[in-house]
């Protein structure tokens, strides 16, 4: 903010040649600083400072009210022995391992299905993408209703197909709860991955696969040796989005299973939420956040690595 007020009068000086140091080039740069400044100020206050503070807070015993005191790495030592945190991490990994291949395969199948010219294919693309624009909270409450025992339409369908009995409660065990949440997430997120993969598919020149087919390659061989390698950057990208999103899961479990039954579906972010904003142990919560951040940075680094590898081959 201070930069922009300082620079504005400079911009209004009409003949810039009057002062020797204010060359056209310098004027251009000053205006550059001025237009970039507001965004930089906002990002600094609400991103960079909290980022540094996360690590700072994690070294303290930091209650919501009252004084905080430096405790060194005690919070981290506590975390690696904290059974609740370890369970949350384990559950998050389990969820990620379950949902990632399901999403990727479904999205890939849909992308191949709608990868055509014509109005019909475009209309189906729009339909398949529709759940993406509904928020996670709304989608979770919608599916919570669909899966209610006895009065939910989805439970009713399952009874009609003879899959479950009328009083089966899908929220009674952590495993069925996890499967149900995964079904909801698949419904909501697949469209997003489909669109990304579709844009990857459409950037592959059609002549390449055609040439391979003319040379006698089967449909599968053409897919395996032409399409898949060329799709690798997009696949890597989608994979990283998907893994990062799953590691950060919160809304769907908070709403649909409330972390239950018997804390069986608490994710990492959910545990951070409970530590920081229910127990108000902000210092410990920050330490858990810092650990999560390192994990996510590792995922991002892996993305870079995967993408670079594809650039060279």
């Amino acid at each position, binding site marked *: 903010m201070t930069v922009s007020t300082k620079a504005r009068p400079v911009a209004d000086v009409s003949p810039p040649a009057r002062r020797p140091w204010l060359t056209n080039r310098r004027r251009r740069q000053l205006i550059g600083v001025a237009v970039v400044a507001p965004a930089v100020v906002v990002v600094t206050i609400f991103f960079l400072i909290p980022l540094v503070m996360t690590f700072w807070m994690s070294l303290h015993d930091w209650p919501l009210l009252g004084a905080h005191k430096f405790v060194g790495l005690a919070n981290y030592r506590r975390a690696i022995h904290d059974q609740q945190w370890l369970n949350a991490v384990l559950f998050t990994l389990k969820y990620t391992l379950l949902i990632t291949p399901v999403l990727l395969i479904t999205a890939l199948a849909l992308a191949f299905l709608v990868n055509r010219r014509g109005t019909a294919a475009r209309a189906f693309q729009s339909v*398949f993408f*529709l*759940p993406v624009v*509904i928020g996670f909270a709304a989608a979770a409450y919608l599916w919570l209703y669909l899966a209610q025992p006895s009065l*939910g339409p989805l439970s009713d369908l399952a009874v009609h197909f003879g899959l479950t009995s009328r009083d089966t409660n899908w929220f009674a065990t952590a495993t069925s709860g996890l499967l149900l949440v995964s079904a909801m997430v698949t419904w909501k997120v697949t469209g997003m991955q489909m669109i990304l993969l579709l844009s990857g598919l459409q950037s592959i020149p059609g002549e390449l696969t055609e040439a391979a087919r003319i040379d006698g390659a089967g449909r599968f061989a053409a897919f395996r040796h032409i399409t898949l390698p060329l799709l690798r950057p997009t696949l890597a990208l989608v994979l990283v989005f998907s893994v990062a999103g799953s590691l950060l899961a919160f809304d769907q479990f908070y709403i649909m299973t409330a972390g239950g039954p018997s804390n069986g579906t608490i994710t990492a972010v959910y545990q*951070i939420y409970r530590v920081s904003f229910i127990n108000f142990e902000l210092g410990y919560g920050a330490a858990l956040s810092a650990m999560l951040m390192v994990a996510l940075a590792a995922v991002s680094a892996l993305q870079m690595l995967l993408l670079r590898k594809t650039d060279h081959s």
Partner: protein
Amino acid sequence: MKTFADVRRTLPRAAWWIACLCVSLVVLYPIYMMVSQSLKSSAESTSNPPTLYPHTFSVDNYRSLGNTGQFGIWQHVLNSVVVAAGSTVLTVALATLAGYGFARLRFRGSGLLFFVILATFMIPFQAIITPLFSILHDLGLGNTLLGLTLVYTTFQLPFGIFLMRNSFASLPASIEEAALIDGCGYLKAMARVMLPVAIPGLISTALFTFFTSWNEFFAALILVTDEAKFTLPVTLTVLATNQLGTLNWGIMQAGVAVTAVPCIVLYLLLQRYYVAGLVAGAVK
């Protein structure tokens, strides 16, 4: 032989249609059920087994939304509109200025600064929510819609700046030079000449920010604790708990519809920009 060839040509086509229609059914079924349930009378909405369509058509659930919770749904719709519109306007304004600066008015260190801002992409706000809560509190922005708006703006800015920088950078320098020769200042040149060409990027930025802010749940749940200031997603938790112990699924789904339908309509109207922005952002 002719009929055989016909079958060979039409069969895959028919299979394609059947496959697509089946997937559409799965995708649209929950959305249909949401609308259907919200239009049932309260007796019908708890019937076991559930009905497929409203036999007793009624808009009572939407009427009841007006006096659920302490404040009624309209207060929360207004909150959501204020936050989503506020962060959209703020993000578009800041991202346009900064995008123009990073693309056209380079200065020493601007490349590094751009990289730092893009790094925000990699760290999600869930990981820094604890200090964010303290900082908002210290600034007197804790528990306010303005605080929430600023947080949403911050986390949409990197994407917006990236999109706008690319839009401006793809324009030939000659148009801008022509405007400058005609006597425009830099900002005037941007507004008059560059901005009209960058409109698609701008709409994508605006749409993304609006959708994200409208739907965001986690930060809204933590940073706003006063029920009068709840945005719609958090209000749904009130609908789920405040029904005197028994949950009214009709009213609940009416609440879900009020939250979801504006996004669906907006998407159907402007999907061209939405998908283009998505793909442009992903191919960075």
